[in-house]
């Protein structure tokens, strides 16, 4: 049995139509094409020419299929695309250089030559880039499909002027910030587990050990993961509210103090890094402890300043 042009056309058009409608559309299209061919033949065209012309007029079967499907054929609609692009830029600019540098330092510390320290981390960085791109894209596709009740690309019907961002747009929580935060949090948690088994760090005696003190898993690691999850939940809540309220500002303050306070204490007590690494890193009051204290204090001040200054500005703008 030979396959006609019409068979091929109809097959191409209904290929992506869901099963329920496929048979019906197949039948309908064939009838319509046959009608057109018949009309052309009656005007004097040869059957072959007529079939060719009829199909040419129907145009690209893929486009016809989209019109039959009547649903979104975009992965990330215009409503979320800008924040997707922004999150991608933000994460690429932070995660990838950090991944590269940490690995390069790791190679260098282990006494490899300069060329190895420069080129070996490229592979790991490339892998990280692939995971990052896939993860962020999947996250935004899900957000686009299920993030709101409206379909992809449709405008917000219930939009009110209250939803306008404040003039200082960088100070409000945006989807790209929350998206980046979620990706970073997932990477952090994965790193926590990975460092237990697949560590790059070796002791002076040559055995491989986790970077972090294994005793932390009893209480502190779960505690910090919970704080992290709560912080992300707060960020999502902020996104919904569009501004800081007294409750969210207090909650934000409690969370950042709950994260940095114990962490600073643990660093100062030298209980963060694995004691097996040697006393340089793990004696009380070592330079690593002091450095961690300074960084944590700076982060705390920055977050608190952002939270409360933004709240003050709102109070002025919205009497």
């Amino acid at each position, binding site marked *: 049995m030979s396959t006609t042009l019409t068979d091929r056309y109809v097959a191409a058009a209904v290929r992506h139509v869901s099963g329920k409608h496929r048979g019906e559309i197949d039948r309908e299209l064939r009838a319509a094409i046959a*009608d057109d061919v018949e009309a052309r033949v009656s005007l004097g065209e040869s059957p072959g020419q007529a079939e060719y012309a009829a199909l040419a007029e129907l145009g690209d079967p893929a486009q016809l299929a989209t019109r*039959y499907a009547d649903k979104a054929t975009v992965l990330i609609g215009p409503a979320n695309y800008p924040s997707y692009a922004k999150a991608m830029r933000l994460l690429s600019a932070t995660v990838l250089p950090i991944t590269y540098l940490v690995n390069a330092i790791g190679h260098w510390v282990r006494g490899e030559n300069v060329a190895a320290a420069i080129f070996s981390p490229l592979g790991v960085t490339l892998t990280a880039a692939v995971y990052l791109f896939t993860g962020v894209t999947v996250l935004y596709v899900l957000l686009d499909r299920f993030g709101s009740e409206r379909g992809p690309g449709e405008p917000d019907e219930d939009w009110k002027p209250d939803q306008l961002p404040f003039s200082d747009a960088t100070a409000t929580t945006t989807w790209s910030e929350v998206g980046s935060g979620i990706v970073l949090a997932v990477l952090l948690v994965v790193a926590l587990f990975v460092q237990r088994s697949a560590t790059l760090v070796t002791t002076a005696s040559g055995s491989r050990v986790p970077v972090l003190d294994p005793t932390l898993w009893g209480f502190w690691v779960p505690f910090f993961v919970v704080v992290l999850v709560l912080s992300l939940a707060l960020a999502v809540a902020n996104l919904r509210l569009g501004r800081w309220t007294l409750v969210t500002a207090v909650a934000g303050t409690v969370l950042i103090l709950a994260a940095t306070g114990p962490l600073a204490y643990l660093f100062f007590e030298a209980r963060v890094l694995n004691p097996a690494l040697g006393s340089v890193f793990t004696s009380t009051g070592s330079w690593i402890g002091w450095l961690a204290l300074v960084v944590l204090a700076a982060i705390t001040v920055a977050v608190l300043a952002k939270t409360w200054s933004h709240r003050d500005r709102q109070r002025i703008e919205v009497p």
Partner: protein
Amino acid sequence: MKDTDLLDAHRQELWRGTVVLASLLALQKPGYGYGLLDALERAGVPAPANTLYPLLRRLEGQGLLTSEWDTSGARPRKFYRTSRDGLRLARELQKEWRAIDTALSRLDTEADPETNTGADTELGEQP
């Protein structure tokens, strides 16, 4: 050359919304896909086949058209017919169509400069 392209683009845009109304009106008498295409073309309504056929299915899905396969002819054909809801909608759209015409005539200053000056040119006023 460029002007005719521009004109075509805007004309298509203008006609696009009328295909639904034209189909609902034409299918008060049952018709099949290609027949309707032909009828619309003869009436001067430009409706490409690859938008009309999916449109008919969509209107059927919305309950504005009913359909039935006719297997008595040489070839089975799917006949569409405007439902009662479809006809009611078509009447509403026709009213809308006349409102558009009225609104445009009112806005067209060149056609009648007298009526389009002063306070009676309030936008959004319905006839």
